């Protein structure tokens, strides 16, 4: 297997007596979609938050592109190439879709300490931003304020921003949540291609999407990894079926 881009070892995080993350090992190799599944409260978002830097782990290491990033803050990790989307979309609501993406482009280009050139006449910001909006299928909605975009469009926009950051790995927290079947299908097709650009750690409840997309699956229950491996193995794993998938067949 190729050298992992993201490598997590023995990660633990407690909130009081509750072990939200309990000795988790997880890695992400180039070209793959690694799905992270588990029942509600299993600690999936807590894990994503520790990788992105919003939460500090108690123990364990997070290595990204060969570098231990435990001590880096959120903006530093983002600049290294960790792109994330949120379970509940988190965007600048008054700005248009375009301006939200342009913010990422300006961050990639270096300094935000430029005081005079108007951004809306800056082709070096607009062109790359339009390009990623085109890719996620939002080009026609570029000038619409985020507050007026649909739920699904906001999800697409978050991915567009992660793309504009030139991310080396994507952390997508339930990108399908609240999307209609049509939207889910389009997004599934999109993520399928996206993995070639950078690997994806995908938290998702939509099992059809997970089984259609994932190369590997890790199952988290009460903060612990109870199974991890190829999709077929996870499907067959008796413990997983008992704990999570339900013995419906």
């Amino acid at each position, binding site marked *: 297997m190729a050298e992992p881009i993201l490598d997590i070892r023995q990660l633990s995080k407690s909130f009081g007596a509750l072990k939200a993350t309990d000795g988790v090992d997880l890695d992400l190799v180039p070209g793959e979609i690694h799905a992270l599944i588990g029942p509600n409260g299993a600690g999936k978002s807590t894990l994503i938050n520790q990788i*992105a830097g919003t939460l500090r782990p108690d123990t364990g290491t997070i290595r990204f592109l060969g570098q231990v990033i435990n001590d880096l*803050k959120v903006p530093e990790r983002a600049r290294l190439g960790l792109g994330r989307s949120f379970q509940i979309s988190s965007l600048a609501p008054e700005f248009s879709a375009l301006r939200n993406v342009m913010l990422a482009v*300006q961050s990639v280009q270096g*300094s935000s300490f430029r005081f*005079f*050139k*108007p*951004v809306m006449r800056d082709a070096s910001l607009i062109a790359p931003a339009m390009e990623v909006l085109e890719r996620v299928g939002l080009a026609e909605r570029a000038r619409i304020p985020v507050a007026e975009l649909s739920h699904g469009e906001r999800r697409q926009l978050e991915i567009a921003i992660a793309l504009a950051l030139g991310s080396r790995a994507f952390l997508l927290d339930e990108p399908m949540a609240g999307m209609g079947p049509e939207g889910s299908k389009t997004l599934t097709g999109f993520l399928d291609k996206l993995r070639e650009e950078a690997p994806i750690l995908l938290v998702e409840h939509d099992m059809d999407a997970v089984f259609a997309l994932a190369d590997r699956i890790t199952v988290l229950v009460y903060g612990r990894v109870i199974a991890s491996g190829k999709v077929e193995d996870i499907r067959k794993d008796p413990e997983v079926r008992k704990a999570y998938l339900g013995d419906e067949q």
Partner: protein
Amino acid sequence: MTMNRETIVNISLALLLLAIPLIALQLNSPFYVTLATRMAILALAAVGLNLALGLGGMVSFGHAAYFGVGGYVAGILAHHAFSGLPLDFGLFQVPGTNMMPIIWVVAILVSGLLALFIGAISIRTSGVYFIMITLAFAQMTYYFANSWPAYGGEDGLSIFVRNQFPGVNTLRPLTYFFICYAILLAALVLFAAIRDSRFGAALQAARQNEVRVATVGINANRIRLAAFVISGMITGLAGALYADLNRFVSPSMLSWHMSGEFIVLIILGGVARLYGPVAGAMLFVMFEFLLGGMTDRWQFFLGLVLLGVVLLARGGLVGWLAGRARHG
């Protein structure tokens, strides 16, 4: 450039403010020139605050600190120029001056340094805590000025002759109005440039959603601190002009009433709108003058107007005239 409604409103406001002193002179009532100058200076102070409060969402309840410090810079430098004694810093001595351009630069630098100090501490907090910390710092400067006898203490400090500007006679009210008006326009140009720039984009995004800004790799607090310092500098410059208008500085320039007045100006005129502070200052000074002439309780009626604006026209006067702000 396309003339949208806001541009038309802005140009009208700018021309209206310019027209007041010109008409006043035709009618031979120079008092109105002073009134218009007061409008321009208060507008300038509020343009500064609008950068932090409007664009950055930092509700500073302590901008009187920068306003007053700017005022004291003008007063103290003029005081030493008048007495001929240099300012004694122990290790070195600095002569006073009555040249406005030098006074302005010093006022901008000193209020910028103060804003850097206060901002670096305050910016870690948000919401009510930010309001309270900025208020607390401003009150500290107020009590400091009150108890510092060298420059008049609570009695304040007079500037015997208005400071000078090369080539013009600043004692002429209209000349001084033009100086203040020109600086106000320059500050508005700067505000618009910052608002539309990359820096402004990051600042406004940080107000809307801090998490989003961090997730794209931008450190929101550094952006905010820089904006806070620029904001304090502009308000400090306004303070220096205000001292020269009144030829008097006192601790009241540093008091929380003043800070509150700046916030009121912005809310009246339109938060984050380019000409919001201009509209607000014109309304405020007009109320103060018209209602103040009729009753000592004019602030009660101002309160009613403010209530109406907050409840019915949340974009302030500019928002009411020009519609909602557009972000492109």
